[in-house]
């Protein structure tokens, strides 16, 4: 019974995939991280304008999907917003930009900075009240990311935590949800991409960016390479990628798209080299 089900199910998948992967040689498919996708979509638009017979399809679904799709050939290029793991060494990475992760608080929160130990204590639930950190006498609302997000992995790695040790009050999906959650709650603490946070703060959102390990959370510091929690935004391919994929990656790493990288509040990969 199980075998029949599996056969039927996989047939259905095969049919549906065959339907949409009949690509001509001039079609490029990129899938993966929702942090990288908006930038790549902009780069793709410009690349298409320069090469009128090329069609580029950008889909999101997270870094893990980027890795999987690139490996299985479902996408020509995977978008991954972290360094590759040891188990992913079969893929080639090409960094197109850098992004930092920073902690954010509501603008009205009197707390101006937190040490690494304080942040660990807050996230593991050892400190539960803002008054222990020099703030108001109210409980801390800890905002954490959902399992599998690269922002979460980077955050845990930097603070030496395991996700099961984190004692969160709210778990969020993407950066926008995190920003809206902290904006609506003066007692919240969360972490998001510096790019997204800086953009929102500049446009009047009631949030503030905390320094990490004494380093101010600014794009400049990410660019200088001194900001402690930074991650590369990568395009990954297998060993035998298509010539078109190679051309696109080269273009995405070139100076021609530097302005697009800046517009999205990331740091160009060649900025500090």
């Amino acid at each position, binding site marked *: 019974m*199980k075998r029949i089900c599996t056969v039927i*199910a996989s047939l259905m998948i095969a049919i549906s995939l065959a339907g949409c992967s009949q690509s001509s040689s001039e079609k490029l498919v990129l899938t993966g991280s929702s942090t990288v996708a908006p930038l790549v979509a902009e780069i793709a638009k410009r690349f298409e304008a320069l090469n009128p017979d090329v069609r580029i399809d950008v889909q999101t679904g997270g870094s893990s*999907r980027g890795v999987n799709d690139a490996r299985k050939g479902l996408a020509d290029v995977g978008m991954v917003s972290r360094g590759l793991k040891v188990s992913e060494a079969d893929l080639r990475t090409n960094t197109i930009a850098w992004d930092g992760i920073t902690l954010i608080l509501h603008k009205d929160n009197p707390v101006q900075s937190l040490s690494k130990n304080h942040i660990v204590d807050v996230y593991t639930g050892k400190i539960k009240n803002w008054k222990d950190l020099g703030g108001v006498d109210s409980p801390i609302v800890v905002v954490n990311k*959902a399992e*599998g997000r690269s922002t979460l992995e980077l955050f845990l790695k930097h603070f030496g935590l395991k*996700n099961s040790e984190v004692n969160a*009050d709210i778990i969020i999906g993407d950066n926008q949800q995190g920003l809206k959650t902290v904006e609506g709650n003066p007692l*919240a603490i969360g972490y998001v991409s510096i790019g997204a946070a800086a953009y929102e703060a500049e446009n009047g959102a009631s949030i503030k960016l905390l320094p990490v390990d004494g380093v101010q959370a600014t794009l400049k510091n990410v660019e200088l390479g001194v900001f402690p929690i930074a991650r590369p935004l990568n395009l990954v391919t297998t060993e035998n990628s298509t010539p078109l994929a190679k051309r696109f990656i080269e273009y995405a790493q070139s100076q021609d798209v530097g302005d697009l990288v800046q517009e999205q509040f990331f740091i160009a990969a060649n900025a500090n080299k």
Partner: protein
Amino acid sequence: MRTSKTLSSTLNAGAWITVGILFLIGCFMVAKSLPLFEAMGVSSLWNDSGWHPSEGDFNVLPMLAGSLVIAFGAVLVAGPLGVMLAIFGRYYAPKWLASVYRGLMELLSGVPSVVYGFWGLIVLVPWISTFAPPGASVLAGIIVLAIMVLPLVVLTVDTAFEQTPQKWLVAADALALQRWSKIWRIVLPHSLPSIFSGVTLQTGRALGETMAVLMVCGNIVQVPSSLFEPTRTLTANIALEMSYATDFHVNALFVSGLILFLMTVLIVMVGASVKRKQYA
């Protein structure tokens, strides 16, 4: 009565295709769930120490509890309220208001669920957090879902009222019954099975709602011990983690889907059996 052969066979085929698709969906989810059951055993779903997919723990009980509490909570709020509003709309409101009112309900039932979720995230959650932090909670989920389900409850109840035999109402008027006793003694008892099955179907809808719940419930994996604590539903779990999942994690999410599927089937069956009894 003559029926067109082509028409009836087309309709037949359509019906069977629908059944077939449903069957295949079931098969697909079972097939996707099996690897986890084979590797860890079905009991890991309630014996594991928690839901930590990256560490190999797949306890889904807290999320099952979250889903049930929020769906039934919402229906418990929206059900009685919906019946009252339907009574008002049909028997108490002036004619012009009743039609405006009905149109409004139809309009409200068509508003996409993210809109309600977004309202919940920026208005409701901050408000709740002023007296019971963190704000994102079971209560917020129940309120948002109840608001979403309410127009549909009103519409189904109203349809049920409409089916009250006209001659009963005329007879009631002839006996000079008051408006309220007419509703209480005739309309409500007659409509009760339809109301019950309609509300049951709405429970299925509430159980399946994803985005709005994801935005306001806080998504912490725990059995909530009060209305003000956050919780995560099975649907929110799938939406939050599916795109980032690998290996057994994917299978575990399909198990969440399978559980939802089975619960919805159960609810529809309960709803249908109540309705069938009425006409038996």
